């Protein structure tokens, strides 16, 4: 796959993660590992123990008097604006003044000499409040007349009413889909160092340094140019550190300025999980009309989401649920509406897929309903409804699907996984096995790539070549394990035709690249890789001009090849060439920029081209359930995923495997459970169960569709990889559903809600056996 064997680490090669050696030796520094300056203090949050109340007073005298305490911060101590809402809706205070809106809401912070002292002191507050009734889930919120936290969206195409009248078949149903905690292994953390004037430097673990910078400036009441935010690496993000770090950065920075000492804040895992947002839970009502062969004629879908007490990113998240409620299927007549419900829970936020998975799973449930109603193999129903064919390529948001490769991808997987044959074998097995039952499902994903907030689709990069020939690379993206830095460095290595070791990847900092977008929406490499390439191209153009002038060669005779630069017959090692360019006063630094072309989106009309392109994939999973207990195992998964022309197949495969298992976890054992008081009781890995090594499929065949190329001019024709394969975990969920359906002769859709814990599986088995 490599273009040039004599250059190490260029594009399309299996380069290891740039920090791999540091990871395994424990020498990779995360924010908590940075040595503290003299006199550093520690902050800890004090939180509410009721879900909804009018706040009367907070008595912090006992907190102040606790050993080691230096002071406290409440809303009154916010020098600028007491607001960290990422969308500017002004609905999310750093600390509230009059209302408690969820159990575990941060109300104040303690600043102490040690973290332990701050944490202990935080328990001593006396909160006086009048408790109000609360609504925890979207249905309770609707019943209680709670408002939307943000403007809902409607997508509409065709006319559903006549289709519902004439269609031969119609099914209505409801599905509840649980949320998900990110459970990044490194929790939230921020560490602020005060500087002169208004200045403050914040080291933290955020996916969105620019937003953290702007938020810190906003709460301090200083211009953004006073604030620097640095991120070397995160111990996982998954969307959980897109907006949620704002609070911690704000508290650390306010305290650092107030006491003129460095301040670190790191919540305990329990507080991390209770005080920061998660994936949105959804309740989805669907009404579908279809013909005899199971082709969908009309769909009416309503998506109510548990957004929590504030908007945070719930607007774009619920929008994306609607954008993906078609998954891979053409709906001739469709109406989709979102209901972003306010609830008395922590404000939900971004999580890998960003609402997309909740849309996709609704589409797959509808397919299942039709399959059981018409007695077909669900895969046949899927295929019958795929985009493609005459007049069947328009999405509910009026974007034409131009790059669909699912027909080929799915049929390749169907063959390599021997889906048809195994399905027959499984049906035969189930007939003879009274207790253990198997299920198999092959589910596709089509995922739209681009931020739906069009202005986010821009990126910057900064490339320097020092006069010894070493290259310094910086871009606006953040490294959270996905290998972004490695891939961007590969792109630069490839462009200069130098070994990747020559390139130093440095921390992300708002000082080098301004106004960056969150590293999110799978866009990191697409955007930052292009920006870095732009910077390289600028420097290269100057170098070519220099060579043309100096050696009198034609521009096309100047060639970068194998750690050398050729100027006609003259050949220089790269560093010698750079040295000469430096002496000739050539500028060896450039800022690159990129914005995604072609995209536009009119939210009010619900029309446009929000996505530059689509990524595709499919997975086939087989499970076995125990109908006495509901326990199950994933026996085998075959997976084929499209990453266009992969920049780094090894890293891309890692993303695909990791996303799949995370998606499977969302739909199986990861359950968020609130008690009646509104307290989240699955609040740490002791109670919240993400997959373990022993939960991964017993046989796991993962392949990239190596024949795929992005039709669009993306970086090296690659495609984004972070989010799309997450949704392939749905194959496990659908396979569980089939295993359940076996107890009633595959005639009833089991209507499993997610997550399908052993309890839900057993209860569904019981329900189906009892005839309903």
């Amino acid at each position, binding site marked *: 796959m490599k273009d040039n064997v004599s250059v190490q680490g260029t594009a399309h090669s299996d380069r290891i993660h740039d920090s791999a050696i540091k990871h395994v030796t424990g020498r990779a520094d995360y924010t908590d590992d940075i040595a503290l300056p003299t006199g550093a203090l520690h902050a800890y949050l004090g939180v509410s123990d009721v879900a909804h109340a009018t706040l009367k007073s907070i008595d912090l005298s006992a907190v102040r008097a606790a050993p080691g305490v230096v002071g406290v911060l409440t809303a009154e101590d916010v020098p600028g604006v007491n607001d960290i809402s990422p969308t500017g809706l002004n609905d999310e205070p750093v600390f509230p003044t009059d209302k408690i809106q969820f159990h575990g809401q941060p109300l104040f912070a303690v600043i102490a000499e040690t973290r332990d002292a701050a944490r202990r002191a935080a328990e001593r507050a006396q909160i006086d409040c009048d408790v109000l009734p609360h609504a925890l889930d979207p249905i309770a919120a609707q019943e209680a007349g709670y408002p939307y936290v943000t403007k809902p969206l409607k997508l509409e195409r065709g006319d559903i009413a006549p289709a519902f009248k004439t269609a031969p078949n119609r099914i209505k149903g409801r599905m509840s889909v649980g949320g998900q905690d990110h459970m990044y292994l490194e929790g939230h953390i921020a560490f602020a160092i005060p500087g002169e004037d208004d200045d403050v430097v914040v080291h933290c673990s955020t996916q969105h340094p620019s937003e953290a910078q702007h938020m810190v400036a906003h709460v301090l009441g200083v211009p953004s140019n006073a604030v620097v935010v640095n991120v070397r690496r995160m111990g996982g993000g998954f969307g959980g550190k897109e907006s949620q770090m704002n609070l911690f950065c704000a508290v650390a920075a306010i305290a650092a300025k107030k006491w003129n000492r460095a301040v670190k804040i790191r919540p305990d895992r329990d507080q991390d999980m209770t005080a920061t947002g998660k994936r949105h839970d959804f309740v989805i009502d669907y009404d579908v009309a279809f013909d005899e062969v199971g082709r969908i004629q009309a769909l009416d879908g309503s998506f109510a989401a548990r957004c929590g007490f504030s908007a945070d990113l719930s607007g774009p998240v619920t929008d994306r649920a609607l954008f993906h409620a078609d998954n891979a299927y053409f709906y001739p007549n469709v109406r989709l509406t979102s209901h972003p419900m306010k609830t008395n829970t922590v404000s939900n936020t971004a999580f890998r897929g960003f609402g997309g998975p909740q849309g996709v799973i609704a589409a797959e449930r509808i397919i299942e309903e039709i399959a059981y109603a018409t007695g077909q193999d669900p895969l046949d129903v899927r295929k019958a409804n795929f985009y493609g064919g005459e007049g069947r390529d328009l999405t509910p948001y009026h974007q034409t699907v131009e790059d669909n490769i699912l027909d080929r991808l799915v049929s390749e997987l169907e063959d390599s996984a021997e889906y048809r044959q195994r399905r027959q074998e499984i049906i035969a097995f189930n007939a003879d096995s009274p207790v253990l039952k198997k299920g198999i499902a092959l589910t596709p994903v089509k995922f739209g790539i681009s931020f739906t907030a069009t202005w986010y689709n821009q990126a910057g990069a900064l490339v320097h070549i020092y006069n010894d020939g070493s290259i310094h690379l910086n871009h606006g993206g953040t490294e959270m394990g996905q290998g972004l830095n490695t891939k961007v460095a590969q792109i630069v290595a490839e462009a200069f035709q130098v070994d990747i070791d020559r390139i130093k990847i440095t921390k992300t900092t708002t000082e080098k690249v301004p106004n960056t977008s969150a590293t999110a929406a799978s866009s990191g490499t697409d955007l930052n890789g292009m920006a870095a390439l732009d910077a390289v191209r600028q420097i290269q153009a100057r170098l070519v001009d220099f060579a043309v002038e100096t050696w009198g060669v034609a521009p096309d005779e100047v060639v970068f090849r194998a750690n050398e630069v050729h100027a006609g017959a003259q050949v220089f090692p790269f560093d010698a060439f750079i040295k000469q360019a430096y002496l000739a006063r050539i500028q060896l630094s450039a800022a690159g920029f990129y914005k995604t072309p072609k995209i536009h989106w009119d939210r009010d009309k619900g029309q446009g081209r929000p996505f530059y392109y689509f990524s595709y994939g499919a997975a086939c999973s087989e499970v076995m359930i*125990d109908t006495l207990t509901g*326990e199950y195992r994933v026996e085998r998964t075959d997976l084929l995923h499209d990453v266009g022309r992969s920049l780094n197949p090894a890293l891309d495969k890692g993303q695909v495997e990791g996303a799949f298992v995370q998606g499977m976890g969302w739909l199986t054992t990861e359950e968020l459970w609130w008690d009646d008081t509104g307290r989240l009781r699955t609040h740490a890995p002791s109670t919240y169960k993400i997959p373990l090594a022993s939960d991964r499929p017993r046989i796991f065949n993962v392949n990239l569709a190596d024949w795929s190329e992005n039709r669009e001019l993306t970086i090296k024709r690659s495609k984004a990889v972070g989010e799309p394969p997450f949704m392939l975990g749905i194959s496990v969920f659908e396979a569980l559903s089939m295993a359940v359906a076996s107890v009633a002769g595959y005639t009833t859709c089991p209507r499993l809600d997610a997550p399908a814990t052993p309890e839900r599986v*057993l209860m569904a088995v019981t329900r189906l056996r009892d005839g309903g």
Partner: protein
Amino acid sequence: MAHRSEIRFVLNGRDVSINDVGASQTLLDYLRLERRLTGTKEGCAEGDCGACTVLVGRLTYTGLTYAPVNACIRFLASVDGCHVVTVEYLSGPDGRLHPVQQAMIDHHGSQCGFCTPGFVMSLYALWMETPEPSEAQVETALQGNLCRCTGYEPIIRAAVAVSRYGSPASDHLNTERATVTTHLQALQDGKRVVSGPQNNLSILPADVDDFAECLLSHPDATIVAGATDVGLWVTKFLRSIGPAIFIGHLNDLKQVETQGNDLLIGAGASYTDCQDALSRHLPHLSAYWDRIAGWQVRNMGTVGGNIANGSPIGDTPPVLIALGAEITLRRGADRRTLPLEAFFVDYGKQDRQSGEFVETIRIPLPEPNQHHAAYKISKRRDEDISSVAVGINVSVTDGVITTCRLAFGGMAATPKRAAAAEQALVGQIWSEAAFDQAAAALPQDFSPLSDWRASSDYRMLSAQNLLRRFFLEHDAATAAPIQLASA
């Protein structure tokens, strides 16, 4: 009794001696904050994620043994006399990457890298014990390590490949074994250790008799065995535990041996210490045992602690009660023995007097006519707390059920026998109908709680179905497999 007030141990390649080690000080905070050994990470501070995994080597009756443990809930005082090995020590004096590290790199085993040092330490311990592990062995070794990024596949591939990168024989923990052993022996001065400030006192008795004496003079002390419960009281509930009497180092409380027709387990024996004897004498507990917590916790946690904490969801009481186990409690030189089920009086209340401790557990070994089973239901298969656990012991003579013991966890305020269900079985012919009747009687015995682990309905239904599973599993007529394979 002669006292010493310093805690002494070997940390990687260096001797450490610290005065004033308070009971609640954790090993993880010591490593990260005081030694700046920041390769060891904190992911949860409750023993569930494994990011803080370090090896602790200690002298046992069979020599120096290393085991991976969770530094986050391990108390610093409890590593007295041990060799603590962190990820920083792995590559050895020559600075070359360790085989485990190289295998992880080559197989792309890290993404964000935060979990990685912990995985490296668990795999290091596995490789030393089982250089060429099967995938199932790797999975068991990694039950206590969470990774949110990779989906585990590359880590498993690395683990299986490590032996191709090097053999444990040349690893420096093995080549230096004799030196370290001598060194640790020299640290064993037979003295009681009393360290830390008065309100947070750490006491390490010299032996079991000294433990009995310490407890008499500090009847209010917290007994700390493996700290897999007590650790969380400190890290999660900020409780103060001083004075604390640490007993994890007492080899004379860790015996696991057969005596006549009984298996005798010292209250201080860890889950891992029991594993061999169980697979030999009580094979039905072997797979069940591997589903208690993860490897690190099994290396620390004790059966005695699991019983003494009196939890209704501890995994050992139901299966031990079903076996007819007895425990011996000791106060000073006085001992008394009682059936295990009698120890659990009510929620949070056990039959243990002030100054008394659990000394031994005596388990009668199965008779030929007995059928035994142990089942655990949890949301996630491994490293999860049970929604329902059950120990079943049914004697059948000439096709008739003569005696039976059904003991459940997760169904009531204490681990408890199902009297009505037992009664429904005794005297019946071994048949599906008999077990259906026992299942039908179960609601007379229990009305379980609903919580985040399971609803009351699910607990009841799955408990009833476990009786059916037992019948099917032990009935000669059953043809199709009825339980998911364990690995």
